[in-house]
């Protein structure tokens, strides 16, 4: 038996912060010992990972990643996205289904699962709610759930038809799963009739720049409807990438009323505003769009008071060619995996201990990953870990990223805090800031 010893760091998880070394069994990928002054056994081929000055935390879980495979391998593959995830401290990601072909079919889900086996993190496929994400016919949720899918979403668009969404919730809510983990429907909230023609937030900047706008209300109307449908069906709804103050307020009220809703927000939506579009740099084009400072502030408040459960990146790689198009023609989306933690540390005015729940164990529960991810750092639990150097200073560079694409909105920005090592099921996938494969 060989082991990996993580030595010299402080453990930070849901039970608090304390000094401690870890011994991880390489064969099972489990933590087998946690305690002071643990050392590698020199009679064996054990290795030691230095965590001096670092915090050892449960690995992060991203509920919202576009891995682009199958279909757009020029922008990203499951392998490259997983490498970016690992470098960002994520040990599990939920892959979005807007691939080509769409992840609405057992064969495509199986392909993603198969490609995920050699990835640097756990790749949990989500699947579309409707066939081809067209909102007309339900995807075979039962069959797909049997393959392990626990999250369904038409992300990229929202389910427009009220009755269709009601039926999808009722049907999903009645399915049982072999592990008892409930199925969740995850909504990209956008009433497309109201957002039609919009390529950025509707307001002062869209009016000045002569670009079509998406009003906040296009998102809020669907948040409002889905809260009503959660009440009607008593089935859980997860709100993706909340971007407006009104959405945050409605989710807060729904939670106060005991309704089964959860929500995520992206680092870019709690950091950047529509003013970033002033130079027509399409790296700032994203759906939902960057909004106003008041919205940014409301999302931060929602993260602080527990209205928003998870920080999700909506990592959306696009090739440089596609982002060099005119702003209205360029595809929406931005990279997020490698910058999420440091941006959260820089922008949220919160201690890492208070940010971690939203990066790790809360999304792990929502995504059906909590048996192996986001667990307290204790003997017997899967070794899915991030080792964070909170003082490491670095400058964001799209071309230096592990992601195939380089469309980061944080280009050139100096950040403090970086993942030094990432351990995925006992496998050291990132060591000293570099992916090991």
């Amino acid at each position: 038996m060989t082991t990996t010893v993580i030595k010299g760091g402080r453990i930070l998880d849901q039970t608090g912060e304390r000094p401690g070394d870890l011994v991880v069994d390489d064969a099972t990928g489990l933590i087998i010992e946690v305690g002071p002054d643990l050392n590698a056994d020199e009679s064996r081929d054990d290795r030691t990972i230095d965590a001096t000055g670092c915090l050892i935390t449960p690995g992060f879980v991203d509920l919202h990643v576009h891995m682009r495979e199958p279909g757009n391998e020029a922008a990203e593959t499951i392998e490259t996205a997983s490498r970016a995830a690992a470098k960002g401290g994520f040990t599990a990601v939920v892959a979005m289904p807007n691939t080509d072909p769409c992840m609405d079919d057992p064969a495509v889900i199986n392909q993603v699962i198969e490609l995920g086996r050699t990835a640097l993190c756990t790749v949990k496929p989500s699947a579309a709610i409707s066939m081809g994400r067209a909102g007309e016919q339900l995807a075979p949720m039962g069959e797909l759930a049997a393959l392990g899918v626990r999250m369904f979403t038409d992300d990229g668009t929202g389910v427009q038809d009220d009755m269709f969404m009601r039926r999808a919730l009722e049907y999903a809510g009645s399915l049982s799963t072999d592990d008892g983990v409930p199925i969740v429907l995850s909504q990209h909230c956008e009433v497309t009739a109201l957002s039609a023609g919009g390529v950025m937030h509707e307001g002062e900047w869209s009016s000045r720049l002569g670009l079509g706008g998406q009003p906040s209300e296009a998102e809020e109307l669907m948040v409002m409807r889905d809260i009503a449908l959660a009440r009607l069906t008593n089935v859980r709804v997860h709100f993706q990438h909340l971007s407006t103050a009104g959405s945050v307020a409605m989710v807060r009220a729904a939670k106060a009323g005991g309704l089964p809703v959860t929500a995520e927000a992206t680092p870019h939506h709690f950091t950047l505003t529509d003013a970033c579009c002033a130079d027509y740099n399409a790296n700032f084009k994203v759906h939902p769009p960057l909004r106003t400072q008041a919205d940014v502030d409301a999302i931060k408040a929602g993260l602080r008071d527990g209205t928003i459960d998870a920080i999700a990146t909506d990592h959306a790689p696009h090739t440089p060619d596609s982002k060099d198009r005119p702003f209205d023609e360029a595809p929406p989306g931005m990279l997020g995996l490698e910058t999420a933690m440091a941006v959260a540390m820089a922008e949220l005015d919160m201690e890492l201990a208070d940010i971690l729940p939203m990066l790790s164990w809360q999304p792990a529960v929502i995504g059906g990953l909590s048996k192996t991810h986001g667990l307290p750092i204790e003997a017997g639990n899967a070794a899915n870990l991030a080792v964070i150097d909170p003082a490491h200073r670095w400058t964001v560079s799209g071309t230096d990223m592990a992601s195939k694409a380089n469309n980061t909105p944080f280009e050139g920005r100096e950040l403090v805090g970086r993942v030094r090592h990432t351990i995925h099921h006992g496998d050291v996938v990132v060591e000293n800031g570099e992916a090991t494969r």
Partner: protein
Amino acid sequence: MRHLLSIEDLDADQMLSILDLARNFATVQQRDVPKVPALRSKTVVLAFFEDSTRTRSSFDLAARRLSADVVNFSASASSLSKGESLRDTIETISAMGVDAIVIRHRSSGTPQQVTRWTDAAVINAGDGWHQHPTQALLDSFTIRERLGTLEGKHIALCGDIAHSRVARSNAQAFSALGARVTLVAPRTLLPASLEGWPVDVAASLDEVVGDLDVAYMLRIQNERINDALFPSVREYRTLYGLTVDRAARLRSDALVMHPGPMNRGVEIDPEVADDPRSVVLDQVSAGIPVRMAVLFSALGPGQFEGELS
């Protein structure tokens, strides 16, 4: 002036010096040989990715009258129709060693993007709903030649403001030059936000028509009816058109303007288009000296000394 991407690139003094220069160039047009050697050996590419007759012809003539070499490049005849990206197209044009790229594109912001891909001077000949700075300059020129100044004049921009690059650049130019600008349109044809716009808004032309120095009418597009932006052409004309009746309430020394092409009988009655107060053709004529002045300001050897041949 390196590029002209937006009328906001120019302050009032810079606009006025371009208008002064244009007045000099206007005299060139009266000559038997309406040409000066100011931009000899310079190459100007007209990269029109959207159909345009008057703006393209106007820039073409302006460049030729400055003795520049002109290359016409149109989207339909170009590699764009073979799937080449805008960036590749611009980089290809630039590699031929050109001094200025005059660009017209249906997408807002493309002139600014293009500056990242070329060393040539970039002149915006209209981008999406965003800006049409040479239109703003030629309209300012026209008003200035007719009324002497824009200072203190009341100008109404009437029609589809939301989807108009002319409205955006003209509101800024007229206001910078001291005019009071009133937008006249139903809410559906106004931008979502007028935050930072130096304008007043009137809900109907009747509110302001008697007070105007300039009634500037914008082209209304029929297809906007499909987007529920207004009910019918008839109703639009009734509420927002410069009809014969309304024109009768316009002062005798007021100007009627339109960037063309006009929908006679919709935003402007045919009789009004041909009224002595209409300066629509003056606007077209002004385009050439104004664009000569813009090209010269971007590419010329420095101050134009007034040596016209």
